[in-house]
């Protein structure tokens, strides 16, 4: 579904990604972890072309993201993305947040877009909040709306960029619950997160990044039982210590 081949990226002189190669198959859940500054967020933003990269190739269902001739808006409309800071549109109601791209990008009619929006709000437990503005919701609720907004486009895959790291502890669970259900329903997911409990429960593979490199890319059980590199062992012992 998603293949990443020898991707490198520089900010000026500074290299943020070094020859990253991996893939995410249909229905697979891949968790990307690593210390801050390791390039994991940058990598996931390269996948839907929000960040350009200078070398290598990323393909989504055989469409090359880096190719100048690729219609990026069309590609992005098929790949959902959830951001660390939610990025709901503050001037629109929750329902309008869910329908604006359905209507303007997918050209669905008001009725169809609204029905879809309501069904998804119900699925994330926020149907009663459809007419509120994002600022009236808690962080956890906003992030669930953001997930619903991405799902409204009927994506073939979902990208999550640290979806719980801006949340208070008690709100993390409500967001992870939605993500777990999504994974169990067979959604293809690439998730940048430090939530190792989530990785244990639903991930198929775990990727560990350090200094712009993918240093581990293994099935979940192997990764947790016996991380191959010392760097990953250190990282795991630190974040699992408490």
């Amino acid at each position, binding site marked *: 579904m998603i293949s990443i081949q020898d991707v490198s990226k520089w900010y000026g002189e500074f290299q943020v990604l070094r020859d990253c190669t991996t893939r995410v198959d249909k229905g697979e859940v891949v968790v990307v972890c690593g210390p801050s500054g390791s390039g994991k967020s940058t990598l996931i*933003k390269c996948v*839907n072309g*929000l960040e350009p990269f200078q070398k290598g190739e990323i393909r989504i269902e055989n469409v090359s993201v880096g190719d100048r001739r690729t219609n*990026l*808006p*069309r590609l*992005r*409309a*098929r*790949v*959902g*993305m959830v*951001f660390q*800071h939610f*990025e*709901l*549109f*503050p*001037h629109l109601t929750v329902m309008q947040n869910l329908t*604006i*791209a359905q209507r*303007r*990008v*997918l050209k669905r009619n008001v009725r169809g877009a609204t029905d879809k929006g309501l069904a998804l709000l119900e699925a994330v437990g926020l149907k009663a909040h459809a007419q509120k503005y994002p600022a009236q919701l808690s962080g956890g609720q906003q992030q669930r709306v953001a997930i619903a*907004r*991405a799902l409204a*486009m009927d994506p073939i895959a979902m990208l999550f960029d640290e979806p719980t790291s801006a949340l208070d502890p008690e709100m993390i669970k409500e967001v992870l619950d939605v993500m777990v259900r999504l994974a169990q329903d067979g959604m293809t997911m690439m998730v940048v997160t430090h939530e190792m409990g989530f990785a244990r429960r639903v991930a198929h593979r775990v990727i560990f990044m350090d200094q712009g490199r993918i240093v581990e890319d293994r099935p979940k059980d192997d990764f947790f039982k016996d991380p191959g590199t010392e760097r990953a062992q250190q990282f795991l012992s630190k974040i699992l210590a408490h």
Partner: protein
Amino acid sequence: MPALDWSSIPGALPFLWNGMLVTLSITGVAILVGIVLGTLIATARLSANPIPSSLAALYVNGFRSIPLVMVLLWFYLLVPQLIQALFKNPAADIRLVSAFVAFSLFEASYYAEIIRAGIQSVSRGQVSAGLALGMSRAQTMRLIVLPQAFRRMLPLLLTQAIILFQDTSLVYVIGLSEFFGVAYRTGDRDGTIVELLLFAGAVYFVLCFAASSLVRVLQRKIAL
């Protein structure tokens, strides 16, 4: 100091009213064209492409470096010839049309800077979110960035409109009968210039003060 004689004001009110209509129409046209053109210039200035961005910078810096009176006079000398060349119709009030054009273009340069700051105040994450949903850059600008930017800019845009409203009095240099010009000439004719100018000043004060109170109310509302 001689006693003030207000007796000529009632008779002058219809003329003053007509003058106010001219003032308001120049203000209205300049706000409308200024904001539309200013938005285009602001987006050009923020463009990654150096050609539109440097042209827009030239426009803004050019107009902001020239006194308004001079712009008015230039356009007064220039626009009639343009109109005659374009429409061959000298019937239109050349002075009014040239005031419309001069104020619109001049104000656009000020509005462009306000709008540019407003656009930049919307976070990059909002742009990313729009793009990630499959919107084009233009759609993201129109549907996501500009509505938020205008909401934040509203107080500044209104403040600029108040300044513009006062600046329209400068059109006396091209002999147009707007509010201030009418007041001045009526007073000059009747020998009651002090009274007329005091009256005109009071009208400007009341209107502008009311408008800036509105700005303050809006600011408080938007801050919520």
